[in-house]
């Protein structure tokens, strides 16, 4: 697929998505009730979705970010957490391509960043060429070169710098076994014929490569500034801000990078003069401070999700509710069943679980309907033109009678006993699942695991429980970053397994995935993924449960804020600023 098609498709996609999103904020109640089979009132938490909150910001002032935690990684080679990628790529470093700075579905559109365009594919989308803009500079005024982007791609392979996105490893030719630029070893598949041109040779056609170049792997790092693992504490800026000080887990202070030229950047607005991130605060204190929004807190935003217990305090007050963002995180949480073990090797047993599940109860256990949507398909709404279809047509509270009937057909009229692993924080969800499946005669034992050990535990395919409760988030708005990760049997690993926790090894599904991946027409591929979603759901390797929202509170002096759909609903740091900079703390 060439660039023109990609842009057209993105625009078309965005247009349809926009329709869906505007529907969310009102006017489509009729359809909502039809879908739910019950009269659901409009969700007060999502009133701001698709809109910019606080109007246009003024230049200047200090924006404060109140956070309960430190960033996982700000080193662009290692940054692979939605919110951290937002913060890093919108403030500190630029990538070849980035997402448009816009609320709602328009945020899924690509725009050139360091590159002049969205890249030129050739050789059947196996070769991608990007040309850098003129006049791009780092924080010390030196020029950003194509070689620096190549260098960061290479260092992302180093075992000393783990944690980053693996798209480069997955797609670049000759990347197998490569371990970074140590001892002068370089990747021949990344070519830099001159300072402003970078060419990527892929091992297979990849029509969506431009989406991958949004990832921080494709940000520039000058070799002279690279300090290995320590670079994480002081990434060198190519964006509108540079780091003044960074005390890990305490405080990060950003100040303007005077060498950043807004003329080269159509995305970042860089309104505040300073951005201060205060870390290690308790979640409920952050909520209280932002609800009160007094003094300097009026110029603050929250980094982490609002606590479910703060919901009533926020939703009952119109002035506070108006300062709440609740964009979808686009992550689907599912009950994943071990399809390799009895009785879950029988599709009727798995369907019985789908029917028995009470998604309304899970929504309640996850913090209520204001902050969660019941899932009605596998892929989140962003991959379905804005809204998930109701593929299964099962009532949200479940259908125990139908589940029992399916169990009877499967030769289990009296049900059976099984167990589920949930993360500590999801104990309530586990209980909701236990109760719902109990109605159909499936006795569930809940095993809770500490979050730090959760993925190790469920990744051990030999010793794990039959059921696990976990989800997946697409890396960018394409079915190719969801379905293959969760349902391709060839990705399964005996230990350290991730994504495909139903251990689903279905030949027709895998064959179809390969066919879709080879499609060069993005729109055709998009529809094919959506269709495949329904086909997989009918084979019931998982039972989709909820899609969480990202509720974020804003101070009263905040302007230009919206949750960015492509960054998991985190505030778009490219545009957020202050109404009145004079009111912020120096």
């Amino acid at each position, binding site marked *: 697929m060439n660039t023109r098609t990609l842009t057209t498709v993105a625009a078309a996609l965005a247009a349809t998505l926009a329709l869906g999103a505007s529907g969310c904020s009102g006017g489509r109640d009729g359809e909502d009730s039809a879908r739910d089979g019950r009269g659901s009132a409009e969700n007060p938490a999502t009133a701001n979705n698709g809109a910019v909150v606080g109007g246009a910001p003024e230049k200047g002032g200090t924006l404060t970010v109140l956070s309960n935690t430190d960033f996982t990684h700000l080193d662009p080679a290692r940054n692979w957490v939605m919110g951290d990628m937002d913060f890093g790529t919108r403030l500190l470093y630029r990538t070849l391509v980035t997402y448009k700075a816009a609320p709602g579905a328009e945020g899924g559109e690509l725009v050139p960043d360091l590159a002049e365009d969205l890249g030129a594919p050739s050789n059947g989308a196996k070769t991608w060429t990007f040309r850098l803009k003129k006049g791009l500079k780092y924080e010390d005024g030196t020029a950003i070169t194509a070689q620096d982007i190549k260098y960061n791609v290479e260092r992302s392979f180093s*075992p000393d710098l783990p944690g980053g996105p693996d798209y480069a490893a997955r797609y670049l030719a000759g990347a197998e076994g490569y371990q970074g630029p*140590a001892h002068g070893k370089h990747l021949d598949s990344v070519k830099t014929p001159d300072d402003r041109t970078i060419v990527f040779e892929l091992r297979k056609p990849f029509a969506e490569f431009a989406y991958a170049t949004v990832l921080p792997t494709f940000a520039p790092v000058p070799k002279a500034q690279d300090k290995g693992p320590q670079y994480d504490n002081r990434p060198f800026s190519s964006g509108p801000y540079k780091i003044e000080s960074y005390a890990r887990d305490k405080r990060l202070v950003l100040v303007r990078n005077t060498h950043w030229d807004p003329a080269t950047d159509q995305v970042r607005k860089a309104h505040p003069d300073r951005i201060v991130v205060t870390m290690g605060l308790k979640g409920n204190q952050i909520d209280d401070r932002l609800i009160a929004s007094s003094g300097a807190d009026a110029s603050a935003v929250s980094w982490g999700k609002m606590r479910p217990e703060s919901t009533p305090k926020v939703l009952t007050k119109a002035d506070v509710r108006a300062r709440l963002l609740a964009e979808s995180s686009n992550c689907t949480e599912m009950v994943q069943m071990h399809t390799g073990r009895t009785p879950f090797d029988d599709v009727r047993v798995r369907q019985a679980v789908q029917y028995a599940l009470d998604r309304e109860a899970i929504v309640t256990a996850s913090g209520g309907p204001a902050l969660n949507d019941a899932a009605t398909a596998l892929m989140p709404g962003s991959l379905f033109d804005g809204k998930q279809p109701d593929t299964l047509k099962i009532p949200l509270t479940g259908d125990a009678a139908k589940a029992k009937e399916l169990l009877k057909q499967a030769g289990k009229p009296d049900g059976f006993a099984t167990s589920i692993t949930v993360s500590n924080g999801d104990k309530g969800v586990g209980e909701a699942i236990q109760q719902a499946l109990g109605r159909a005669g499936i006795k569930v034992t809940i095993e809770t695991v500490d979050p*730090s050990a959760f993925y190790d535990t469920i990744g051990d395919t030999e010793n794990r429980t039959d059921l696990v409760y976990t989800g997946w988030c697409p890396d960018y708005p394409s079915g190719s970053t969801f379905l293959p990760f969760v349902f391709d049997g060839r990705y399964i690993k005996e230990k350290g397994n991730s994504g495909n926790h139903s251990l689903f090894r279905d030949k027709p599904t895998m064959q179809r995935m390969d066919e879709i991946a080879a499609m060069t027409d993005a729109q055709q591929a998009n529809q094919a993924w959506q269709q495949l979603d329904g086909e997989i759901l009918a084979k019931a390797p998982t039972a989709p449960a909820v899609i969480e929202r990202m509720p974020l509170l804003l101070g009263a002096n905040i302007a230009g804020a919206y949750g960015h759909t492509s960054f998991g609903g985190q505030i778009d740091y490219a545009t957020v600023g202050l109404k009145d900079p004079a009111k912020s703390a120096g």
Partner: protein
Amino acid sequence: MILYLGRRLLGVVGVLIAIAAVTFTIFYVLPADPAAAACGKSCSADRLAAIRAHMGLDQPVWRQFADFVTGIFTGRTIGSGQYTLHCEFPCLGYSYENSQAVWDLLMDRLPVSASLAFGAAALWLGLGLSAGVTAALRKDTLADRVLMVGAVAAASLPVYFTSVLLIYGLIRATGLLPYPQYVPLGSDPVQWASNLLLPWLALAILYAAMYARQSRSSMIETMAEPYIRTARAKGLPRRTVVVKHGLRAGMTPVLTIFGMDLGGLLAGAVITESIFGLPGVGRLFYGALSSGDQPVILGVTLLAATFIVLANLAVDLLYAVVDPRVRY
């Protein structure tokens, strides 16, 4: 005296190495894998192996431990390939989670925990001892009963309860104090104290209650000793009898637990620091536990052990000062 001190210090080193060995083994047999945690989502087996090798996790456990102990005394080089890090003396390892040497992390957090510990200690010693001594001297009067009932009540309140109560009373309802944010003593002593006042109170209430009870019983026992009777009989003023003869001997058991308490707190008050959002050693430890950051867990454990062992030593030496009967 010097011989005694030398012998004790040797013992301290032995105890610390033993603690390090036990901690090391515990985390080695636990299922948490720091390499897998660092590797992130969809980590390939090859990459995991490379990361394990870089972190030195592919070495046998005795080898890793030997490297660790050597590093403490001589410093060591960590990592292989392109980025080798030199971890200087005293090297307690490198935190892959925080991208910093564990020693630097600890030294960065220590002032916060020390501010919290010493401030709270001053408060609880003052409150606890005066309440305890007063109650002891007025044994079985109304004042004694009121003080002791109060102490039992305060001692039975867990710190997370008092903290939440204080936060509500002094911050949320009245706005008398700010949400604590650590301000270094050197940059603004007034801000330092006013921000720490709440956590000090939360910690001190619990300890003061225990110290009041401890010092009361100890004082009652001492005041019944024959030498106190002798001192009284000689006609010494009551003040001299209580302070010079009674208090000095009566404080020895209190001093013992004080050494342990202060030593433990210096290495971080996990709950208090977490509740008030203070970036001290305790919160570092809590974060390391939940992310499986093994080098930091080991470092904090060793730091805590060091403080407790050293505080014990200091207390033993102080006995000689406080109690004239003790000599080394």
